[in-house]
């Protein structure tokens, strides 16, 4: 990752990529839609929608339960998606990837299956001030059951993790550290390789929340060197209810099941049940087969674009938008880390975030307002809510122009 990627390659045409997304042609309140909420969930290209449709029309069956042809096809498609995803994030093998309903479930799986059995009173879990609730609350829940506590590594006013403080906080009673790869509010890209190195030196497992990274930059989990990597499919052009947890085979093998049921067993007897090997050990019940078929198509689509091109295009959009927003009087950007991802949280003097978002919506512009599932981060900045514009490769500078013009109008209306 972080190869010197400053320009999109000549083969990448952002307007052609945009045309792959049917929803982007609709209008909202009579205005052409400007969708700046991709950090919340991305739009889906036609190839993903068609893959889900085709699965239900032609291949639908349950996985790994029947010998008939359809079941074979469904199993092949589902396992094919796992293999594609594993390759996409740089996993050593498909067996290192547990398919989950998203990041939230992936983190909960680690909390209950890996962390809780090891936790003792007095132990701690280290997170950062900029985490999403999904990387806070599961740890709090298992800590509360075990008499352990949560510690928080601070960030700077610019929204950067203070790495020295994080390292100082990696004390012997820390049983696990959880860090977001990219902040969903600030856009900050954390130095996860460096953090993983420090954690590994101390024998502390590190979980990286990759929700906002996998959709927007090349990711190679093995070169990061973390122990767990969680991500969610719906932010990377895939269907909702899909995602994954990566961990090395030995790590997964050492973990007991979290959910019990079909699919995850080897042999069930009332006297005792033996469990399947990972990753299936952690995939009890019928999975979201069609969803993963769609996610497999999304991976193929993103690989076709090239993640280096995606990153470069989004950097262009970020730079353009940041510049343009500086011209809006009273606007303050929250999160000014260097090397940010294409996410801009902002405040406008005298205007409440929800009023801005509602008025922008009336102009056809979708931004998110609120706490972004990051209360502790809002508390750090002393604000209840921000507005957030988040970009994807399918956005355009014309859309940014419309957004900035509308924001200026809206700001004046409220002033």
């Amino acid at each position, binding site marked *: 990752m972080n190869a010197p990627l400053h320009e999109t390659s000549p083969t990448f045409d952002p307007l052609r990529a945009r045309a792959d997304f049917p929803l982007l042609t609709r209008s909202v309140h009579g*205005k052409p839609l400007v969708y700046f909420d991709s950090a919340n969930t991305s739009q889906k290209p036609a190839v993903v929608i068609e893959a889900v449709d085709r699965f239900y029309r032609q291949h639908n069956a349950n996985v790994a339960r029947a010998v008939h042809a359809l079941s074979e096809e469904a199993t092949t498609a589902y396992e094919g998606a796992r293999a594609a995803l594993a390759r996409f994030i740089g996993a050593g093998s498909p067996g290192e990837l547990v398919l989950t309903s998203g990041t939230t479930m992936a983190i909960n799986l680690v909390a209950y299956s890996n962390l809780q059995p090891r936790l003792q009173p007095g132990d701690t879990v280290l997170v950062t001030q900029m985490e999403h609730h999904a990387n806070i609350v599961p740890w709090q829940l298992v800590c509360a059951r075990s008499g352990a506590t949560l510690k928080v590594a601070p960030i700077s006013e610019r929204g950067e993790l203070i790495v020295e403080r994080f390292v100082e906080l990696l004390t012997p009673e820390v049983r696990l550290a959880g860090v977001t790869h990219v902040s969903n509010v600030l856009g900050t890209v954390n130095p996860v390789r460096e953090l993983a190195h420090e954690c590994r030196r101390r024998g502390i497992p590190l979980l990286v929340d990759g929700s906002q990274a996998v959709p927007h930059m090349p990711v190679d989990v093995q070169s990061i060197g973390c122990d767990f990597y969680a991500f969610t499919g719906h932010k990377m052009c895939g269907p909702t209810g899909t995602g994954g947890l990566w961990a090395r085979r030995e790590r997964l093998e050492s973990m007991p099941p979290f959910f019990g049921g079909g699919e995850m067993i080897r042999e069930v007897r009332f006297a005792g049940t033996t469990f399947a090997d990972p990753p299936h050990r952690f995939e009890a019940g019928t999975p979201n087969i069609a969803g993963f078929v769609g996610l497999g198509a999304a991976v193929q689509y993103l690989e076709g674009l090239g993640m280096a091109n995606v990153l470069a295009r989004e950097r262009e959009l970020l730079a353009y938008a940041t510049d343009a927003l500086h011209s809006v009087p009273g606007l303050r950007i929250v999160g000014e880390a260097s090397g940010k991802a294409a996410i801009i949280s902002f405040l406008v003097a005298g205007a409440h975030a*929800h009023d801005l978002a*509602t008025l922008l919506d009336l102009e056809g512009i979708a931004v998110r307002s*609120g706490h972004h599932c990051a209360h502790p981060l809002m508390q750090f900045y002393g604000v209840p809510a921000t507005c957030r514009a988040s970009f994807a490769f399918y956005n355009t500078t014309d859309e940014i122009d419309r957004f900035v013009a509308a924001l200026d109008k809206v700001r004046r*209306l409220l002033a």
Partner: protein
Amino acid sequence: MSAIGPYRDIVLDHHRAPRRLGRLAPPAQAAEGVNALCGDRLRIEVRVEQDRVTAYAFEGECCAIATATASLLGDLALGRGRDDLALLERGFATLIGGGIAEIAELGALNALSELARYPARRKCALLPFATLSAALRGESRATTELPA
């Protein structure tokens, strides 16, 4: 702006220049309304004489919708009793829930009927109503957010 939605002129006017801003001299009944997730927070004070509201004041930090509603609510509340206001609160909830086009007695508050298309913002307009009714019942706090 071409599309204004719930931000009609009268709403913007009461947002920019809220009426009856401040506090009452005692005796007064007061309640705090807090929507912690939104960050909206206001205090409404009323004086009640012979079961009628005879004075109203509010202050706080809120979005434009909540501020304008709190300001407009002052006009509505003066001279009315608790039961009457409870009925109007239900009527207002129905109005902004899209259940009815207009309720004459709500007067200028009808300008917020567009909130029917903005379900996520209804709690902003309902907060002043809930806070007023808390004050009238002698309760000190109100919220229109589900406990998160």
